[in-house]
């Protein structure tokens, strides 16, 4: 069903690249808007309580100080985090409880700092524990899976197995920190609302904000976005507060989140505690898998991360069990962060598999291959394509795995212990309904319009490539318009589904225009997307890491990181590489650097800036490479593409953690792996 391709697959440079590197590309907060005022969000200084009064300095240089005592009423929507300034209830530290508006950013910020808040603080709880009496099993986990599954009898399998592994891994709170923080400029013209807003879904933001203010015409402009990682998937409080303040003051209002607010107001990856139990025969054949995941949510909203869902389809085993357990805390609501579910889940599963390989005295790649399923193990449905084993084998060749001494703490080079590790990767292949419009213009070019967003990934460029091939013209003849809620409605840039969803609609529109000879075609993919059969749609990969651990200090550095993927047709070799590498680097951060450090007494992650919350810097990235198989899959979408935005962070942390064990003999089961956890166990030099 695919046509001969010309543009798709080519390593086209980002078409907006020159605009970005020359500074001409405008991000949300950069639009010049006459008379704009500045809003500064006042975060709650306590994790739980009631705000009873807000007293502003009467001599202060402010236009408005909004709080629940004077803010206009807003309509409630699904996301209670958006009911800003509507209640006296404080549900977490950092929650927006007031907004100061002033002529300058500095004046607004200062007034916010000295604002007098009267708060009745209450006892709070902020620590996730598996044995907390409040732990409960949710009905479903995101985005609608059953919380628990049971197949066969895993306890008997464990009791009768030759070899078992029973390990608990923990991951800390992780925080989406796109380079561009969340930002909004809001302007009202009568009941027409314009938002310049940084998000992953302009039409979704328009609909939500419209509902909140009871208006129909909300125009969201999202031309360029400096990253999102899931945190901009829906409207955030900044958009509502900017619109609210603009309504009250009669001025356009700009609200830009400071870095500190990125740790509370826009979601985070929940901390997890994960117990994985494996039962296997001497030959490595798994007879049982049990994966129980504990995570937290807020008092406001049940967000249930699907941590153990990935275990339902990764490896074959007759007896299996997965479960999810939640605890509500006086903490911010977790949300999506790059590969929610898969990233933490595969950390625990793939480290446990490595521990099993050690116990069996078996190569960890061979162990994985031994347990390759022929269909989805729990559902029994067929895979549209699955080339996991090929990723492991071909990746091992490229990485130079063969001849590896499986014993830990054997390789010493100068001051460093050296080790290598491997882990699998997978991510669901998804698509959502979208609509695209194409017009044949008199000058021989074509205008393709779709309300998609480009988070910096190259989405805009890929849509041009897809359109060019579907129209059978050169990419130079295609003009693309995205990033605007008034364009045909597109799905969210999330779940690694953007290219598939939008590309499907663009393909449909362009082919129809080409075939019918009409000047303009609008194509809605809803019916096609919903007609898909129930099949196992997943991308796969294998990650390989070589680390060195300083024999004196225990400092860990990643000398080599390699990913081999099978992710359908790769639409743009250049931007795909960036996606894979970006995911792998973020995986390195998850393994070694990133941690929201909770102070239970304060009820807050106290390292809430980029000096305290470490992500990898350039010097941490040494040799890193991604490669992919030429995978053909005609059953997923017209392009044959699978999502690639998230798979790089799935399994790469486990490969690094496993390599640290191989280098030192030390299993670190609480992330991140850092020198203070390694130091005392380092082998004698």
């Amino acid at each position, binding site marked *: 069903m695919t046509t001969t391709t010309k543009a798709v697959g080519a390593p086209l440079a980002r078409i907006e690249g020159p605009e970005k590197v020359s500074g001409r590309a405008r991000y949300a907060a950069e639009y010049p808007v006459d008379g704009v005022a500045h809003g500064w969000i006042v*975060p709650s*200084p306590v994790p739980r309580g009631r705000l009873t009064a807000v007293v502003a300095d009467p001599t202060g240089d402010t236009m408005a100080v909004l709080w629940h005592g004077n803010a206009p009423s807003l309509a409630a929507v699904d996301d209670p985090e958006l009911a800003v300034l509507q209640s006296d209830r404080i549900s977490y530290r950092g929650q927006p409880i007031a907004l100061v508006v002033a002529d300058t950013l*500095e004046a607004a*910020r*200062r007034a916010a*700092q000295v604002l007098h808040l009267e708060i009745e603080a209450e006892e709070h709880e902020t620590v996730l524990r598996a044995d907390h009496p409040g732990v409960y099993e949710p009905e479903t986990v995101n985005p609608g899976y059953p919380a628990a599954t049971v197949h066969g009898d895993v306890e008997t399998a464990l009791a009768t197995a030759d070899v078992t592994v029973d390990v608990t891994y923990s991951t800390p709170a992780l925080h989406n920190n796109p380079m561009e923080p969340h930002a909004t400029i809001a302007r009202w013209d009568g009941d027409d609302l314009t938002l310049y807003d940084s998000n992953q879904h302009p039409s979704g933001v328009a609909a939500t904000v419209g509902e909140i203010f009871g208006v129909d015409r909300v125009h969201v402009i999202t031309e360029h976005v400096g990253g999102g990682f899931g945190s901009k998937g829906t409207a955030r409080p900044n958009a509502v507060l900017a619109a609210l303040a603009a309504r009250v003051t009669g001025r356009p209002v700009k609200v830009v989140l400071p870095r*500190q607010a990125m740790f509370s107001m826009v979601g985070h990856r929940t901390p997890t505690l994960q117990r994985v139990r494996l039962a296997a025969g001497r030959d490595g054949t798994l007879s049982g898998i049990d994966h129980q995941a504990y995570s937290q949510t807020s008092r406001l909203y049940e967000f249930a991360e699907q941590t153990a869902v990935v275990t339902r389809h990764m490896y074959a085993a007759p007896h299996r069990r997965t479960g999810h357990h939640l605890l509500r805390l006086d903490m911010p609501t977790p949300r999506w962060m790059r590969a929610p579910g898969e990233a933490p889940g595969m950390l625990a599963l793939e480290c446990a598999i490595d521990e099993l390989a050690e116990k069996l005295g078996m190569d960890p790649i061979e162990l994985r291959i031994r347990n390759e399923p022929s269909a989805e193990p729990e559902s029994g449905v067929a895979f549209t394509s699955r080339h996991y084993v090929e990723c492991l084998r071909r990746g091992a060749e490229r990485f130079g795995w063969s001849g590896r001494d499986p014993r830990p703490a054997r390789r010493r080079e100068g*001051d460093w212990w050296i080790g290598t590790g491997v882990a699998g990767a997978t991510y669901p292949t998804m698509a959502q309904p979208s609509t695209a419009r194409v017009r044949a213009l008199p000058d021989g070019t074509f205008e393709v319009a779709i309300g998609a967003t480009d988070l910096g990934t190259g989405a805009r460029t890929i849509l041009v490539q897809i359109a060019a091939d579907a129209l059978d013209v050169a990419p130079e003849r295609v003009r693309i318009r995205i990033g605007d809620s008034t364009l045909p409605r597109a799905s969210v840039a999330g779940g690694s589904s953007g290219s598939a969803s939008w590309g499907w609609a663009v393909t449909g529109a362009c082919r129809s225009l080409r075939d019918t000879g009409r000047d303009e075609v609008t194509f809605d993919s809803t019916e096609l997307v919903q007609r898909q059969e129930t099949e196992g749609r997943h991308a796969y990969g294998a990650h390989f890491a070589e680390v060195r651990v*300083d024999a*004196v*200090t*225990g*400092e860990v*550095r990643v000398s080599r990181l390699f990913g081999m993927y099978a992710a359908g047709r790769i639409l743009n070799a250049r931007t795909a590489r960036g996606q894979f590498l970006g995911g792998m680097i973020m995986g390195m951060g998850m393994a*070694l*650097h990133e941690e929201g*450090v909770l*102070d239970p*007494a*304060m009820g807050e992650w*106290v*390292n*809430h*800036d980029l*000096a*305290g919350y*470490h992500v*990898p*810097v*350039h*010097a*941490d990235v040494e040799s890193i490479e991604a490669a992919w198989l030429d995978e053909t899959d005609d059953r997923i979408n017209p392009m044959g593409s699978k999502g690639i935005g998230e798979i790089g962070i799935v399994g790469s942390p486990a490969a690094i953690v496993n390599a640290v064990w191989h280098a030192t003999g030390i299993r670190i089961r609480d992330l991140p792996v*850092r*020198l*203070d956890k390694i*130091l*005392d166990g380092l082998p004698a030099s």
Partner: protein
Amino acid sequence: MKTFAYRTAVTPADGLEPGAVFLAGGTNLVDLMKLGVATPDVLVDVNKLPLDEIADLPGGGLRIGAGARNSDVAADPRVRRDFPVLSEALLAGASGQLRNVATTGGNLLQRTRCRYFMDASKPCNKHTPGSGCPARDGDHRDLAILGASASCVATHPSDMAVALAALGATVRVDGPAGRRVIPVTGLHRLPGDTPERDTVLEHGELITAVEVPPLPFAHRSTYRKARDRASYAFAVGSVAAALDVHDGVVRDVRLAWGAVAHRPWRAFAAEERLRGRPATRAEFTAAADVELAAAEPLRDNAYKINLLRRMTTAVLERLAEGARR
């Protein structure tokens, strides 16, 4: 940010009006002003003062102007040749962009990065005297194991200062009350019950230069920094050392630690223990342990004792090996 006045300093001895602070590179002060942790009424810009020279001192020492930028000091051929520990320490700190702006005086006077100090919404005896120290029971993995108090467990974050402490450098100070010279090891205070005061400087006193005295064996000196990522991170522990070995015996040694105390920690007791003893691994470790005997770690930073012991041993061993070659 609180509204402030701005003026330019005319001479180093100008002094400061009440509520005023000096502004040099601004890489730390401006951040603190945005956060509302520093709320000066007046900024007195010292960048125009002619304080950026690096000059030879008789006998092989150097006078480094307080306005000399970190990048320039790190790259100075004399510093690299005679005091490599100083160049290495500077290059281990911050980022290239920050080092291009940050000054020698400002680097010494930068404030702790303790997370509670950096957040005006939280208690902290350093930014709000008497409000308490949540770090003792809270997050203190990066904080002090030596010389701390019930009021404050902050660390001084500078790498450069650790090298200067090891080298026995002094600070030249000017002010309305006249000039004075203070050893770098005596510039920063221990917190005691007045942690709001980082240093012994009086209001209005300005550092004009740092003097590094001649130290012939410092051409064999080094700085080692342990950190949580490869670059652009404050130390979790660091060692500055110079070693003079003759016939296998330690003739002299200079040793200072970073990220362990409210000031760059000159390990005088360890030095004392080592002088005249064999330059062996066991002696190096024993010397580190003499110094570390005074350590009072908190719940989550006891690892620093082992870290400093191992790093000190390794650094001195490396210097001793170099001396044998």
